[in-house]
């Protein structure tokens, strides 16, 4: 049962084959057994969770159930949830209890889904390995000595280890897609502005976007129907008609023009990853897709641009943590300034401090034009690359990450090497486009483990239904997405 999709489990609930309480308890039991090692969940509240399941059962009994009613979902700990400890992976918020619900939490509650618990993440979503979490690293279920990716590493590991049926993530520079790739699941970052950022603890506001992490594209479509929609509480939320993201799932792919950016297959891409991605592309040809080579010439610049814009926005967003209204306050301090400086020095981890310092520096007097403004200008060039590319193709495909999961500790001390993990994902955030990763196969590690490889699919603005169609068609003819790691039975 643990390997069933949201769609299948939903049908079992509707058909009264199982209750939400039974299903939820099954996943809670698995968490009890496997989470102490994997560390995918950092906060559980079984009473709250089971109360929600009970409520879902009453909805189902009354015939008021919808697609996700009664299904247990892991929530990334970046989302504030009322009455739940919400830490964002930081000591700064170690004891923070959410006083309200994030938009995404409200939406899942609104359809009767069950909040199974809060998942581990890189501190304030800053990282690509989940190693910056104050609550300890997360194991990749495919090889416990390796990282799950990040920053949504807890959500990815939880789905991969079948500790939940699906989970939520957020993606500022690849934080849904890269862990989805490294843990062998499907993850989607929507077009910027489709999902509300209200109650999602802010990292880089012009890039942050939440999205689904699940076992299949069909499940992601069901979650997209819940997650997206206008929210007046988010100033960058887009006021558009609601869409049904399942509507195009079964369309044939014949004639679909798939663009392969030559920069995504150049130096820096691991040969083992390239092999799997090329095999996936060959599968798409069999499905009737037409392959065209395209160019995204400013790809290399996306990393420097991102590491100006994201830290700049982060340094501003994280200034709210002052030890006054909420969050960590140092035990001993002198005057007010000393209280700020000590509270923040103690509450933030090393990577978060580095990014705050970079951001403070690039925004400081005299440097704004040379860094922030320059980065925003190049950001437009990067977006124009995609605009030009979409004149030649309907959809773009390539690798999600340059390598498979790396060993814990391998890059932890080298920020620049870590940042390069996001070379194929960051430009998508800068352009505000939707991007997703789906399992495309495995590459063997040097010690003989099977490590998942993700195929990235990038769509034009608001083209999520087409991307999900492309992913679903592939998942009808392959079974990479249903394979499970060993040792999680």
């Amino acid at each position: 049962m643990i390997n069933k999709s949201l769609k299948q489990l939903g049908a079992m609930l509707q058909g009264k084959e199982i209750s939400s309480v039974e299903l939820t308890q099954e996943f809670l039991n698995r968490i009890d057994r496997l989470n102490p090692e994997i560390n995918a969940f950092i906060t559980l509240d079984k009473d709250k969770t089971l109360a929600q399941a009970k409520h879902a059962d009453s909805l189902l009994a009354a015939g008021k159930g919808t697609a996700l009613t009664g299904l247990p979902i892991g929530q990334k700990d970046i989302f504030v949830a009322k009455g739940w400890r919400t830490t964002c992976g930081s000591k700064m918020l170690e004891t923070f209890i959410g006083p309200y619900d994030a938009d995404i939490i409200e939406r899942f509650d609104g359809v009767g889904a069950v909040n199974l618990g809060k998942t581990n993440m890189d501190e304030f979503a800053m990282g690509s390995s989940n190693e910056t979490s104050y609550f300890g690293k997360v194991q990749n279920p495919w090889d416990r000595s390796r990282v799950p990716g990040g920053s949504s590493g807890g959500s990815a590991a939880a789905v991969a280890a079948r500790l939940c049926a699906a989970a939520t993530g957020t993606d500022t520079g690849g934080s849904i897609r890269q862990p989805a790739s490294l843990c062998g699941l499907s993850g989607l970052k929507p077009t910027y502005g489709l999902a509300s950022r209200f109650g999602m603890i802010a990292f880089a506001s012009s890039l942050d976007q939440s999205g689904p992490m699940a076992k299949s594209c069909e499940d992601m479509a069901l979650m997209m129907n819940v997650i997206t929609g206008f929210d007046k509480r988010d100033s960058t939320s887009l006021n558009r008609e609601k869409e049904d993201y399942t509507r195009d799932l079964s369309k044939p792919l014949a004639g679909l023009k798939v663009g392969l950016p030559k920069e995504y297959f150049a130096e820096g891409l691991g040969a083992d990853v390239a092999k799997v991605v090329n095999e996936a592309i060959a599968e798409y040809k069999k499905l009737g897709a037409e392959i065209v080579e395209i160019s995204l010439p400013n790809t290399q610049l996306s990393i420097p641009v991102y590491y100006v814009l994201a830290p700049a926005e982060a340094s501003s967003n994280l200034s709210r943590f002052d030890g006054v209204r909420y969050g960590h306050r140092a035990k001993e301090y002198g005057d007010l300034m000393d209280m700020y400086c000590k509270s923040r020095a103690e509450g933030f981890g090393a990577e978060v401090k580095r990014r705050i310092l970079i951001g403070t520096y690039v925004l400081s007097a005299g440097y704004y034009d040379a860094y922030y403004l320059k980065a925003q200008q190049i950001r437009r060039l990067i977006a124009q690359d995609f605009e030009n590319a979409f004149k030649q193709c309907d959809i773009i495909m390539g690798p999600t990450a340059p390598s498979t999961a790396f060993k814990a500790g391998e890059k932890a001390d080298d920020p620049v090497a870590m940042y390069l993990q996001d070379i194929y994902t960051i430009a998508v955030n800068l352009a505000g486009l939707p991007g997703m990763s789906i399992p495309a196969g495995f590459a063997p590690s040097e010690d003989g483990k099977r490590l998942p490889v993700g195929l990235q699919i990038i769509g034009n603005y608001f083209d999520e239904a087409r991307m999900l169609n492309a992913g679903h068609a592939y998942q009808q003819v392959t079974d990479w997405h249903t394979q499970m790691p060993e040792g999680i039975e």
Partner: protein
Amino acid sequence: MSLNSADIKRIAHLARIEVSDTEAEATLTKLTGILGLIEQMQAVDTKGIVPMSHSQDVTQRLRDDVVTETNQRELFQSIAPAVEGGLYLVPKVIE
């Protein structure tokens, strides 16, 4: 742009983060690496390019100037590090 550890301490002060001398040294090495990465931008000619902050052509929404929030002082103060009589406590700032 090369930084020294006095610069790190100055930036850290602007960011309201206390750093010791040894931390400043260690941070200097890492920040220098990151700034080296960022420096690649300077080779690009961006003359006349309009900076981009949002992918969609959107403008800030306006709403009626009316109260939309309810008072939740007690709830919000229940998670504060130090409060007294409905006020947030901080070290004395006025002599």
